[in-house]
């Protein structure tokens, strides 16, 4: 990773700790040419967000709300950047109209990295309804998604999502469940 020296302070006090899986995701995104990132944080994505924060090849412009992040990414794409947006699945629901009425009709390929809260076993009750509806929501918009499978090689999985996205010019989703960083599952 090319670390921006001005940002070393952040990297020296990493909040999320290192995750080799997050680093692998990051490498594939850099290889693909990602150079603009916006989003709203989720604890489940902390290592991914920290990698963006310290990466000098990325213009990282955090948003106050997920819809805003969608708009920022669209603007960056028009300016010939390759954008990624990160958010919790709760934010995917609140920004779903923006994806449906702006990103899809304009055919803009944006990779959304979305934490998949509300899966079985989770005790946070506010996530359960959105958790149950997340895959249905994305499918109903006719969009592709990948739930990261810890048993398969991460880089290959993500590369195929990105290639597919470039070909179809459609927003695409990477869903990360709690514990996705674990090496052994």
């Amino acid at each position, binding site marked *: 990773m090319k670390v921006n020296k001005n940002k070393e302070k952040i990297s020296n006090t990493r909040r999320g700790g290192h995750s080799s899986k997050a680093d692998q995701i990051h490498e594939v995104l850099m290889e693909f040419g990602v150079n603009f990132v916006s989003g709203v944080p989720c604890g489940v994505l902390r290592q991914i967000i920290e990698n963006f924060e310290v990466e000098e090849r990325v213009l990282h412009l955090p948003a106050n*709300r997920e819809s*805003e992040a969608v*708009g*920022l990414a669209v*603007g*960056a794409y028009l300016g010939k950047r390759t954008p990624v947006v990160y958010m919790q699945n709760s934010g995917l629901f609140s920004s779903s109209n923006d994806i449906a009425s702006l990103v899809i009709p304009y055919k803009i390929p944006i990779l959304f990295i979305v934490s998949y809260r509300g899966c079985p076993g989770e005790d946070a009750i506010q996530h359960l309804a959105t958790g149950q509806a997340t895959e249905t929501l994305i499918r109903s918009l006719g969009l592709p998604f990948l739930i990261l499978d810890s048993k398969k090689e991460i880089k290959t999985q993500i590369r195929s999502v990105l290639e597919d996205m470039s070909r179809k010019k459609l927003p695409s989703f990477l869903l990360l469940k709690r514990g996705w960083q674990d090496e052994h599952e």
Partner: protein
Amino acid sequence: MNREKAIKTIMMSVVASESVVISTTGLISREIFERFDSDRNFYVPGSMGLASSIGLGLAVSCPKERIVVIDGDASLLMNLGSMVTIGNRHPVNLLHIVIDNGAYGSCSEEKSMSDSAHLDKLAINVGYKKTYIVENEKNLKDAILESGDGPVFVLAKIELGGRRDFKRPLKLPELKERLMKSLERDKEKNHDV
């Protein structure tokens, strides 16, 4: 000042400067599309409220271009956090104009809350460099021409009403490609210099 005059004043002023125009959802975009279509325009069809976010994303990605966002009062109120982000990033190449008729003009002119929002003061409080309130064409034109480095906020007060039967931009992927090609040409031009 009515919507027709406000849009005409803005478009005549920005065409001369070869700015990129991002216009908000509804009648504002439809009027600009029908009367002032250009490969420098981007129309926000749905996703009401996102014009200023798209403008900011473009402004930071193309620092050599001047980006003009033509927003509405109700659409800005839907995505008010965007003003905070603009003030925080402080893009010098962004001009944010709000055409304020105090209503959801593209619906049935239901009242918005812009009359109590003091959007011009809010712009300064969150970090815009300059703010203007204008109520006639001359002041609107002067504000656009003298505004200089941004982010600049212009609140253009207009009356309700006006034509509603404009055609809609439909071939959106083509319009997107058209703008991107135009930006690419600028890049080459800038590179040559």
